[in-house]
């Protein structure tokens, strides 16, 4: 049998985790339930009272459901183990750099640069997200894409032609194209990472997957998307490339042009969706 592979020692600065007691039974769905409840409680501190209650309610309901499947001692042991794992993961997550993702930042100014909607930047800009600790050491090695096409206002330039194409397409959108774009819109909606959670969930349901497969899929998917976004944000704030809405209005002269929906901030290069594959 291959050796057990905890993520400890594989992910960056991940601490040692609690161990199970040798020879004692555990109910793994209970451990999972209590770990996931704790993580979600920590990750959504500003959730509404109703949503906070929903976290408590789901945790209790599942614990009650599983309590009929094994002994109280096993349930108790599994609850303790799941919570202990979550506590260590939370302590580790707290030092990943997210607390400084919105530190003060002065974006560059000029025709080639992204124009922030407000100054200081809104909290949704996260200019230092690219400094977050990678989960997989070195996952961004050789991952930076290099400089984008040089910004130019010359109608014969590649940059001008590229943005003109965006404008031209926007003028001839078919109902199908519009529906497709709105279907995949992240905000408002389940968010970009949420789209991937949705897809994994759908695959798990369709394949009638067992808990081991679910754990593996959830972990692998989350780690990949997390590191891809860190790398993506590093690029965005390195180049701060002007967004199409600014260029179309100021250079192409369509001063009232708006995209089908607000694609948000910050710089357009490199596209988040291209980084994580949506």
């Amino acid at each position: 049998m291959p050796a057990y592979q905890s993520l400890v020692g594989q992910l960056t600065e991940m601490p040692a985790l609690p161990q199970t007691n040798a020879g004692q039974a555990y109910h793994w769905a209970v451990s999972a339930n209590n770990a996931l409840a704790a993580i979600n409680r920590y990750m959504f501190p500003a959730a509404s009272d109703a949503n906070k209650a929903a976290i408590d309610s789901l945790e209790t309901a599942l614990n009650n459901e599983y309590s009929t499947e094994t002994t109280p001692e096993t349930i108790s042991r599994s609850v303790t183990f799941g919570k202990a794992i979550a506590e260590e993961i939370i302590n580790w997550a707290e030092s990943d750099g997210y607390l400084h993702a919105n530190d003060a930042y002065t974006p560059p100014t000029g025709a080639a640069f992204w124009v922030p909607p407000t100054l200081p930047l809104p909290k949704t800009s996260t200019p230092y997200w690219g400094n977050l600790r990678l989960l997989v050491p070195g996952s961004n090695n050789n991952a930076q894409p290099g400089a984008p096409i040089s910004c130019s206002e010359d109608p014969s330039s590649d940059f001008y032609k590229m943005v003109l194409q965006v404008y031209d397409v926007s003028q001839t959108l078919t109902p199908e194209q519009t529906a497709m774009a709105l279907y995949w819109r992240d905000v408002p909606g389940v968010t970009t990472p949420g789209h991937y959670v949705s897809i994994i969930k759908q695959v798990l349901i369709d394949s009638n997957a067992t808990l081991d497969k679910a754990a593996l899929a959830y972990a692998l998917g989350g780690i990949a998307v997390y590191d891809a976004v860190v790398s993506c944000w590093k690029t965005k704030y390195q180049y701060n490339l002007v967004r199409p809405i600014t260029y179309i209005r100021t250079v192409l002269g369509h001063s009232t042009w708006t995209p089908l929906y607000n694609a948000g901030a910050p710089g357009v290069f490199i596209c988040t969706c291209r980084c994580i594959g949506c």
Partner: protein
Amino acid sequence: MKKNILVNGLILILLLSACKKDTQIQTNDVILSAKTDHRHLKQTNMYSSDVAIKWMNLQLRLMTATTGVANVAFVRPYAYSGIALYEAVDPVCQRTNRL
């Protein structure tokens, strides 16, 4: 002809007996290993993914309802939930599902 059938039948019985004994030895090994190696008899692949799916459903609801947070910031609940889930379930499953 009858002798051949008898011999073949005897060989088959011996083989089946040997297989049964071998299986029993392997089972005993698993139990012994479980007692000494932090492994547990009901493995994670014997549970449904229902618990994970229900938490994914709630996480999507929480993501959708949260405002004033960068879209990309939701990679944290996604990633850390997956990692916590992976580490919170029996290591036995991870012997065959290695990251």
